């Protein structure tokens, strides 16, 4: 025993004493240059160092290979999820337009007819409208009076809005069926396009330049070096949740409405909104950021063509809000829905809220209750709006939108009165907008070989990442409850130190913020001894494959 120990000590000593490698001093004659080459001069102030740290992180996320790993990387800093501003599609508070415009960086252009790129399809649309007009009228009659639908009513929302949405849902399906059946022989992209019913649209991004919350000011006050930076704005994580009735997507993206250079046009500037989102009426929730455009990464049809949304929530709004605000609420819903869906699609192309788009993306959004139809065309130019870039970024997104237009006046005794063909024509024109293959690389920030985790060769890594990603984006409740400061602790331990004699054990007593825990700060699954590889293996825990950011 002693001998064995002795032997080990000697070998350890040897390691220190004996130099195994040696290198001759390199005598490089070219060490000197004519003009001196200095390393770059870096600003060593705290602010600049922190900024470089963040830029390094953004660069790291950019260099991650696969889509799913990038999404995990976005969520790495928070084990319990980000404290997100929750933007629901069907809850628009009063006067939300300035905030939504700033948060989606969208310039809104009200229009009467569709933008100039649609003029080519106007003639074809007129022919199609003539063919399908009677069919659409019949469908409206049948859905209103001919079929007994039984809608499942939930207690969570007012019945009125649910009924409106349910009717819109069935009508939208019928009209979509009629138009796609008609166009399938005329335009090739309709046959191969996929139609999703009730897909899940979610998007997550950071918005900078928001006023500082009071608790952050309080926290900053305790450090002397932050004294003159108390009011420096912070980043806010934002999460959008949407549920369209129907969405159509294809393999190629739609053509841009405007030139990409137009994105930097100062005319499209969006006013800044710095107030806290609580002041408008939006709330917070702890959750992992998710970017989901209705399908998992790896699906063949990755680019959206159009999506239909309901406007039942307008019925729930207070009457005193007025018609003008209701109209703005529709614009807000459209901008959010379009931006959210496109951002999620952009994320599947390898861009994130830290790495900006290199080309524009386009989608078309329709908001309807069956009778009133509003049409929107949206061009996504930039997704960069976190704290450092919100003021510098010259690009803006552009949203074209119409007012709600009436498709028909009323339905009575199996007849549609006042049918408006122009509205149907607008709708058909959206379908006729043909997606095109782009000449440049659509996925510049994804790996050459590995673009989604299904491409990864290592079996263990692939399975682990797949499981972790789905677990993360499901946002299922944690097994253990979230850390909490109980009220009695706040009173007797924090505000009045009446229990100073007790040992300090709780996180707030040790100066730890439990919400700053990183995603990978947990014990990996234990490998029981019987399952460890033969013969002797010291590895107690399974490997994790979190992205290195």
């Amino acid at each position, binding site marked *: 025993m002693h001998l064995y120990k002795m032997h080990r000590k000697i070998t350890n000593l040897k390691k220190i004493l004996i130099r195994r490698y040696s290198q001759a001093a390199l005598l490089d004659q070219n060490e000197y240059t004519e003009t001196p080459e200095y390393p770059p001069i870096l600003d060593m102030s705290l602010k600049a160092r922190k900024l470089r740290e963040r830029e390094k992180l953004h660069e790291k996320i950019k260099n991650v290979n696969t889509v799913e790993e990038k999404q995990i990387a976005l969520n790495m800093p928070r084990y319990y999820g980000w404290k997100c501003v929750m933007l629901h599609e069907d809850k628009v508070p009063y006067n939300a337009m300035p905030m939504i415009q700033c948060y989606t960086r969208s310039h809104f252009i009200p229009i009467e007819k569709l933008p100039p790129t649609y003029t080519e399809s106007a003639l074809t649309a007129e022919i199609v409208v003539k063919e399908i007009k009677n*069919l659409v009228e019949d469908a409206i009659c049948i859905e209103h009076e*001919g079929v*007994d639908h039984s809608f499942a009513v939930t207690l969570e929302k007012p019945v009125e809005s649910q009924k409106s949405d349910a009717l819109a849902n069935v009508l939208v*399906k019928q009209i979509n069926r009629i138009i796609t059946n008609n166009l399938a022989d005329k335009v090739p992209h309709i046959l191969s396009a*996929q*139609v999703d019913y009730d897909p*899940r649209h979610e998007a997550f991004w950071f918005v900078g330049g928001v006023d500082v919350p009071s608790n952050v000011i309080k926290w900053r006050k305790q450090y002397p070096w932050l004294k003159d930076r108390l009011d420096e704005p912070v980043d806010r994580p934002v999460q959008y949740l949407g549920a369209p009735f129907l969405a159509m997507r294809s393999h190629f993206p739609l053509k841009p409405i405007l030139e990409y250079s137009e994105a930097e046009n100062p005319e499209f500037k969006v006013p800044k909104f710095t107030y806290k989102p609580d002041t408008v009426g939006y709330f917070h929730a702890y959750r992992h950021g998710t970017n989901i455009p209705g399908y998992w990464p790896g*699906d063949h*049809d990755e680019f959206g063509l159009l999506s239909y949304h309901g406007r039942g929530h307008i019925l729930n709004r207070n009457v005193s809000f007025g018609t003008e605000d209701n109209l703005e609420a529709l614009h807000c819903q459209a901008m959010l829905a379009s931006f959210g869906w496109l951002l999620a699609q952009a994320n599947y192309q390898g861009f994130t809220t830290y790495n900006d788009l290199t080309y524009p993306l386009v989608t078309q959004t329709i908001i309807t209750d069956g009778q009133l139809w509003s049409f929107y065309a949206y061009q996504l130019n930039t997704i960069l709006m976190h704290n450092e870039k919100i003021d510098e970024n010259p690009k803006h997104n552009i949203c074209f939108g119409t007012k709600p237009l009436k498709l028909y006046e009323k339905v009575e005794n199996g007849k549609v009165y006042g049918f408006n063909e122009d509205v149907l024509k607008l709708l058909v024109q959206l379908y006729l907008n043909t997606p095109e293959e782009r000449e440049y690389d659509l996925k510049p920030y994804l790996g050459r070989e590995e673009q989604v985790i299904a491409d990864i060769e290592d*079996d263990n890594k692939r399975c682990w990442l797949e499981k972790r990603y789905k677990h993360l984006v499901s946002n299922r409740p944690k097994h253990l409850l979230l850390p909490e400061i109980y009220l009695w602790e706040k009173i007797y331990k924090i505000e009045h130190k009446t229990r100073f004699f007790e040992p300090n054990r709780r996180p707030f007593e040790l100066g730890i913020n439990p919400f700053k825990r990183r995603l990978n700060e947990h014990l990996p699954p234990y490998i029981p001894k019987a399952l460890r590889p033969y013969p002797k293996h010291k590895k107690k825990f399974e490997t994790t494959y979190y992205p290195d950011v």
Partner: protein
Amino acid sequence: MKLSQVLNRQHIGFMFKKHWLVQGKRVPIDTGVEEVLRAKGIPVEDALEFVKEKPEPRERINIVGQYEQPLPLDQNHPDYKERPCYTLKNTNVLLEGIAQAQVITKTILAEDKLPQKIEELAEVVAPKTVHDGVKKAILSANVFDTEQKKLPKIKDPERPAYNFPRILGITDRRRNQILTNKILQLVERSSDTEATLSKYVVNDVECKTVFDKEDDLIQFQDVSNILVTSNKPLTHDTEKDIPFVEIPDLYPIKHTITMPPEHFYTETSKYPIRPTVSMRHPHTTWLHFNSTEVNNIYETPVTLPQILGRSLTHAFTVATSYAKQLYGENVKDLPEPVYINCIQTDGQNYHFGVLELNTLNLDGKEGATNVWYCKNNLKLYDSSRYFSGMPVLENYNPKVYGYINAFYNC
């Protein structure tokens, strides 16, 4: 937060509660006032004499809620009937499956045999783009859809008490919805314009039929997940000289077994599309088999004959409710047979059937009978899922699409 942990600590609310408890049980102390007063000649009266009267009971306020409350299910309910009605809903199955369904609906079977026209149309080869579309639809329904809802609990028969982690994923209801709708969209887009113009498609509509059979009142309530209707009634040229499976004898079982008797029902049948609509004639009805929703009432797993029986009762429900709308509630032998196509699927297996409804006189075995042509257990694919992190679709069977297409275009 566990209560016991906090109770051990300083808790002002808890302290107050305890204090109230102690203070609430106070015993009145004799202060000696009474004697002093009596000595001075002032009469003392018992306070309890003044508080003897009980307060009047207040009228209950009828609170009008946000929603209408359902009426209580008792004898005063407008739908209450003395006579029980044996009910089969789309979440229940018949004990004896197809055999029992045959007895109730008085139907003879032509197994593995569909009308000639359908067989011919099924042979037509679809272009490759369409099959690619079907493959995309299968993958989209099983793999790429982003629904994350709780799936049924996993049980290991070896150790039934063991709790596996609950998996989130695509529910069978959603999977079937996506798959069938996408396949139907493909069929419609690749069909002739004439075929699509004469048809109409509705989702999730309810059919109901009530009928008498040998002194029992029976009702079938079914949901047609997709109902394709057309502008003229469907007809088939059927063969009469094929070996039919005759109506079996269920003895000792009665044909109403596992159909719970109900007392709240209406005696009228219901076809979801009103007679004013021109495209109301049922053409093809799609039925989803969602294994989490369809159960035996005795908790045993659902067997294959039971699933096949479900197809027959479903087609019968749609056909009879339509026939009753057409010829009146009390029609017995139909002047012209009503045909309907039925496709049942659990996503993977497809059961095709064509019902020829000749009669609604369902007593006994004699006289005219209904005929059920069927072709069962066609597999669309062997497996489609995430297999070790990779999307997989194994052994796609193009024949099934041929049959679906034939059913739509016949």
